[in-house]
């Protein structure tokens, strides 16, 4: 009897598991772990260094679950509230109501947006260059010890120069393209007057940290900060080919702005999960004939 009961229990468990799978399939764990790194289970190895003694920042860097809300440049401000000027507020309203997400149109997100993004990135480094490689097949190359160009041509990543300040790699960027660029996933604005100063450190082998200061007197009443730590990816992990514009059917269907923003500062609807049996399209009277 015991063995029969055990078999029946096993079958019952299997049926429940199959039913759960039928109702609510989910992302694969590997997809979630591609976005989020894991804290090391043993004390992290010391900061690797280059032959000339600087910290080596290279590696594949993934977000932490502690970074909340991701995609929001106001993450570290009370209520996530950015100090917008009247012009900045107008630019935000324009972004929300009249611009489609530039990244969805395969336009470079630039910085600081890439640093606020959920997506992992890679850094490669030599004594003359530190290069950021981003998932959407964009790159940012920072010359070490260079001076800003005179009247630089506006670009999405700006005119950037790097220098070592002790163990901190400082990237100073000016010369950005102006509105309607989104500074983050929430469609907050940035202007061509923006000045971004990034201070990157690698406190140990498993972590890289950014202290960012954004100064943009056209759109923000005062400079503000954004602080974030990423975790080292697994050995062998890295970027692969990504073709944004191969078949961008989205282009014709995307509305302006990112859609609703939740109270937690992320994007999306506060709605129940997908019903087990949703209604047919005939339940809605606003589908185009």
């Amino acid at each position, binding site marked *: 009897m015991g063995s029969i009961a055990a078999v029946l229990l096993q079958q019952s468990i299997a049926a429940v598991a199959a039913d759960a799978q039928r109702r609510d*399939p989910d992302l*694969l764990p590997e997809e979630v772990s591609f976005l989020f790194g894991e804290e090391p289970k043993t004390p992290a190895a010391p900061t690797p260094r280059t032959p000339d003694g600087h910290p080596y920042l290279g590696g594949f860097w993934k977000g932490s679950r502690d970074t909340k809300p991701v995609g929001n440049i106001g993450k570290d401000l009370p209520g996530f509230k950015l100090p917008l000027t009247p012009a900045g507020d107008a630019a935000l309203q324009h972004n929300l109501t009249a611009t489609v997400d530039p*990244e*969805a149109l395969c336009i470079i997100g630039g910085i600081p947006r890439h640093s606020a993004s959920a997506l992992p990135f890679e850094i490669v480094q030599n004594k003359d260059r530190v290069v950021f490689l981003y998932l959407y097949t964009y790159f940012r190359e920072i010359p070490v010890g260079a001076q800003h160009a005179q009247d630089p041509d506006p670009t999405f990543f700006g005119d950037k120069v790097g220098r070592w300040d002790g163990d901190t790699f400082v990237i100073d960027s000016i010369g950005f393209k102006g509105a309607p660029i989104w500074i983050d996933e929430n469609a907050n604005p940035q202007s061509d007057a923006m000045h971004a100063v990034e201070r990157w450190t690698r406190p140990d082998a498993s972590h890289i940290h950014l202290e960012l200061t954004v100064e943009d007197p056209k759109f923000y009443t005062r400079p503000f900060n954004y602080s974030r730590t990423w975790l080292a990816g697994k050995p062998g992990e890295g970027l692969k080919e990504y073709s944004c514009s191969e078949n961008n*059917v989205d282009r014709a269907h995307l509305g302006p702005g990112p859609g609703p923003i939740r109270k937690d500062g992320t994007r999306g609807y506060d*709605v129940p999960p997908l*019903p087990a049996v949703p209604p*047919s399209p005939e339940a809605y009277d606003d589908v185009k004939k």
Partner: protein
Amino acid sequence: MPCAAHHSFAAEFDGTKPVRLVGTITRIEWTNPHSYFYLDVADSKGHVTNWACESGNPGALSRRGWKKGDIKFGDKLIVDGYLAKDGSKFIDARRVTLPDGRVVYGGSAGDGGPGDSASQGK
């Protein structure tokens, strides 16, 4: 590469309008940044219209067990998802029942769509 959102779910789809399509496949686009398949769907009066279903990219779907060869023209699919905000016959395909009965997740990681806890760091 796992499918990673290149736009917010809520910029394109209405999370308050879940929908089920039951139809036959007329076209398949196994492409980046999303895969698409198109269904002929009959309404209660027998009138047939063609719907586009947006799904994850080929790599993501393959890893979830959905290979390109699992569907072909004329196959019947059940697709649960959300209507586009622009009112067109276009949905986000988040839960797809394949012809062999398997159910796979069709969404994009981190897009903030209903059930995508990754977008909130969970």
